[in-house]
């Protein structure tokens, strides 16, 4: 009887200890990446190569999703605003929702599932096929040669993708609000310009996405590096990357929003 009562409690305790343990490991890994970043900055073509895989290859999904999110915002925003007779404020609504929240958060979620999972799988497979061991036996530190360039490529790509997502969203909102519904094009832009502040809205949004980029890529490379070197282990690590990234992005978003706005 006591056992059945205590068992979930014990599991919870185990889970908490496990989570804290991982947090410690990931922090140590972060420090290791920072200490081994010199090489990736000196040999920047390594970072450029990884930016191709994490950034350029994510362009399509970012452009398409940004457009659709903007169109939905335009449609939903219009139906809500028109009840208060302020449909003219649609431009401001679309721009502020995208710049402050939706752009950085959704771009980061898409980035985690498109580029983060690929990063984990790639590093995990390199581990499973002893490529990381081979590198280390060749006296080349895999953290410096494999992990750090991917990390910095992700950190640099994320704000670019978020900015593009915002632009596509604003264009999507314009397409629905002005071209489809027939609002005045001038008031779409002027309402936007009157209400969007460069520092508070645009810059803070990009700073947010920089933090998300760091968090997502750190999780992705850590999960890959820490993966059990088997097929099942790599697939579990890939799943963990997407799930953990999503949770961390949303939690971090709350913290950053509380700090910034």
């Amino acid at each position, binding site marked *: 009887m006591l056992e059945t009562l205590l068992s979930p409690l014990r599991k919870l305790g185990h889970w908490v200890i496990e989570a804290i343990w991982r947090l410690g490991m990931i922090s140590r890994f972060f420090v290791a990446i920072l200490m081994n970043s010199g090489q990736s900055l000196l040999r920047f073509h390594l970072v*450029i*190569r990884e930016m191709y895989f994490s950034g*350029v290859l994510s362009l399509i999904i970012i452009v398409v999703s940004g457009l659709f999110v903007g169109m939905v915002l335009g449609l939903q925003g219009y139906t809500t605003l028109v009840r208060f007779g302020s449909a003219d404020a649609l431009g401001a609504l679309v721009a502020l929702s995208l710049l402050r929240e939706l752009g950085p958060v959704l771009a980061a979620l898409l980035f985690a599932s498109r580029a983060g999972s690929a990063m984990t799988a790639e590093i995990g497979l390199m581990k499973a096929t002893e490529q990381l061991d081979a590198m280390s036996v060749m006296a080349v530190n895999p953290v410096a040669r494999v992990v750090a360039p991917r990390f910095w490529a992700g950190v640099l*790509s994320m704000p*670019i993708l978020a*900015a593009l997502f915002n632009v596509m969203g604003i264009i999507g909102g314009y397409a629905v609000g002005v071209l489809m519904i027939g609002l005045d094009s001038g008031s779409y832009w002027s309402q936007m310009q009157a209400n969007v502040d460069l520092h508070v809205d*645009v810059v803070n949004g990009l700073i947010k996405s920089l933090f998300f980029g760091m968090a997502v890529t750190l999780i992705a490379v850590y999960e890959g590096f820490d993966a059990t070197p088997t097929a099942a282990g790599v697939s579990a690590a890939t799943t963990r990357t997407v799930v953990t990234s999503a949770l961390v992005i949303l939690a971090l978003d709350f913290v950053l929003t509380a700090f910034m706005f």
Partner: protein
Amino acid sequence: MKRSIIDLWVGIFVAIGLASIAFLSLKVANLTPQSADKSYVLYAEFDNIGGLKVKAPVKAAGVLVGRVSSIELDPKNYMARVNLSIDSQYSFSQDTSAEILTAGLLGEQYVGLVQGGDPEDLKPGGRIALTSSALVLEQLIGKFMTSFAEGGAAKDDKQP
């Protein structure tokens, strides 16, 4: 240094990023060159500023002429000192008056300037002497209630 097609793609990628940020700053946030040398500061003291915030617009005849740069409480007379950053191309006479207005019924509050008749203009750092405070809804209702009550009492005296 070998060139590769990847470098080209990453170049395009970074260019797209810079173009997006430029678009967001110029077209969306309407980044206007509002540097210090192109504006000057005036200040005004109000009994009550209501919901006025830093960066609120300053308008004359409905035209944007500047923004509220800072708000502080004067520790001597307990009035709100509002610093206004005014675009240098506009100058105002010494008897200009400032009032705190609301855009629409529930809109944001802004400072309205009304030009006076004095030939002398306000110098940078000058004080706008004539001010009228923000309308605070609670006080307005309070006043209405008292005058209504007084009006009710006065009706007996046949004094509307």
